[in-house]
């Protein structure tokens, strides 16, 4: 049997309302949990890029890619293993300002984790950190000792190590 692995799916799409519904239905119908999802512009004008993280067997992954590509407004879908991509997530911590002065350790944590302070006011300060999931998890554990007022993490964003031939593909499609 095929082993369950973490895959990152990249989908290039026409910028269209309703497509999120269509794509998420493909996963939902098969009881596949989406670990994270991110939608943004891409390197090509008027083309959106989605990054979805899922845990599946490769066989399941291939079938899902087929179903995604079948959608009229999807230009191309790819799936990648962890070592084929460079990826990051981003997170924000909101913490009481008093702690920044009372707990010296916090300043060390910020320095050592390569995170940065986005804003400080009398009541709270906000730390931002970009990195891999494990790094963010570690930072979360370290800061939670002192109390976190709010925390949020973004979905994964990724670029591939190899060239994406999407621009050539688009040119070919236009002829």
């Amino acid at each position, binding site marked *: 049997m095929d082993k369950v692995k973490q895959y990152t799916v990249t989908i290039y799409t*026409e910028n269209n309302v*309703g497509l999120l519904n269509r794509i998420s239905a493909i996963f939902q119908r098969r009881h596949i949990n989406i670990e994270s999802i991110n939608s943004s512009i891409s390197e090509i004008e008027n083309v959106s890029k989605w990054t979805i993280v899922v845990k599946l067997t490769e066989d399941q992954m291939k079938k899902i890619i087929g179903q995604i590509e*079948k959608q009229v407004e999807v230009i191309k879908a790819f799936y990648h293993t962890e070592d084929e991509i460079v990826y990051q997530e981003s997170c924000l911590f909101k913490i009481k300002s008093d702690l920044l002065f009372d707990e010296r350790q916090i300043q060390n944590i910020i320095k050592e984790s390569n995170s940065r302070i986005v804003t400080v006011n009398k009541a709270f300060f906000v730390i931002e950190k970009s990195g891999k999931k494990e790094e963010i998890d570690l930072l979360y554990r370290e800061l939670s000792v002192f109390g976190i007022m709010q925390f949020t993490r973004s979905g994964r964003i990724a670029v591939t190590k190899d060239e994406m031939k999407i621009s050539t593909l688009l040119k070919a499609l236009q002829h």
Partner: protein
Amino acid sequence: METKTIKNNEQSTSKTIRISGSEAVVRSLMAEGVDVLYGYPGGAIMPVYDQLYKFQNEIHHVLTRHEQGATHAAQGYARISGKVGVAMATSGPGATNLITGIADAQIDSTPMVCITGQVGSHLLGSDAFQETDIVGISTPVTKWNHQVTKASEIPEVIAKAFYIAKSGRPGPVLIDITKDAQFEEFDFKYEKCTGIRSYKPIPETNPNTLQAAADLINNAKKPLVVWGQGVILGEAEAEFKAVIEKASLPSAWTILGASAIPSTHPLNVGMVGMHGNYAPNVLTNECDVLIAIGMRFDDRVTGNLNYYAKQAKIIHFEIDPAEVDKNVKTDVAVLGNSKETLAAILPLLKENSHKEWHQKFKDLYQVEFDKVIKNDLHPTKDGLTMGEVLKEINAQTKGEAAIVSDVGQHQMIACRYADFNVSKSNITSGGLGTMGFALPAAIGAKMGAPNREVVTIIGDGGYQMTIQELGTIFQTKVPVKIVVLNNNFLGMVRQWQQLFFDKRYASTEMVNPDFVTIAKGYHINAKSVSKREDLTNTIKEMIDHKGPFFLEVKVEKEDNVFPMIQTGASVSDIRLE
């Protein structure tokens, strides 16, 4: 979405005219060559109906008695004509009533465009009267859908809808148009869609796969073809026939593939699947090369996948890349349109005879004949069988009728025993198994092919799901021949209850009304038959009758359909009794 269009085409209006969105809807449909559409008016679609009134001499609107009937009629029309079927409904319940037909068209790859009215755009999301999120609801069961809120979008969106519905692997498209967009005036100009940047309807064929497939077929000792609707949708009947004849390939069909080659063709070895023929099912697990053409290895075809053709090399001719390796791992996948790929492989194939292999099919046919077919077609017991009704219809239509069947025992009997000597003759709900499909689908089929005899075979259960379409038949006088095979049971469910639930007949016995009286209430000629000696004459009367005709045949109550592959069993463990 970037799209390509044909300009100044004869079907495109090169002149710009200032009209309302609702008029643009009707003019766009006419530009797409739509001569008939099926639907039901209501508040949010009234402006379009007002235009249909204005253009009633150019485009024929058929008022069905329920929106579901409109979709099935559009499906019947599309399946027999190869053209796009069109259904129309108002917002809210009108739109939601289309869903069953849309889902049916999606799973059976039927080209259909549905147009729904929607509340005014200022009311969207306000839970207005008859507002429903039909784009959201229809998303999983449409090939594409879109909501229009500006009149100026109408021509481009309708052009795209027809292009998407018909091209590649066909399917249903839904266009939802807000009422304000229907009233708004704009400068109308129609250009047909010829391409969409993100959508590739037909995948490229890799020539290496053609050669690899040809090598496997040429070296096969026991090849078996299983073809599906892809041959019919690709209009590849002639190419298909040439391929199987040259290499002498025994060929079996899926329910939707039926009629691509005549039933009488010597290489036609019958239907595969749950109630298919004995020989092709058993020999699926004996063949050395299985050549699947335009089919999708549905579970009703394959039985238990763990025991499906494991000994064979699998070749899959397919237009939809997502179908390849979905259910059955293939050795060679030939992507592309069946018409082109079959034509391309023909010169690569060697002539062959496979004499001994063909004999096996004949031997197993004889087994099936003795155990099942003989009793179905030439019964010696008193009660009428469904099979003998089909045999009589075959005889009196010379096997040239289009058979529109519903879902259940009668459907399996119709598919097993109807003679299909003309392509596009088996119109039935295959993938979704929609009871109530046949009566409205027959209306559309007869309108899509007025010169063909259209006989619809329906069970007493399914008939009562869309029986109100008798009103549509009465009003349009469409001369369909309706045969209800009445066993006073939901027969297929009853059969399962008998075989797998110790005859606990939970909610399957039906107390039925007098069907003849009901048909007569709609002024449709009607007869009922319960004796064998009356069968031939009454069917003759029905076929000879110029207008619509209703025939009830009271058949044996507890007959079963065999052969049968039980759920979870292998195709070769098919039961004969």
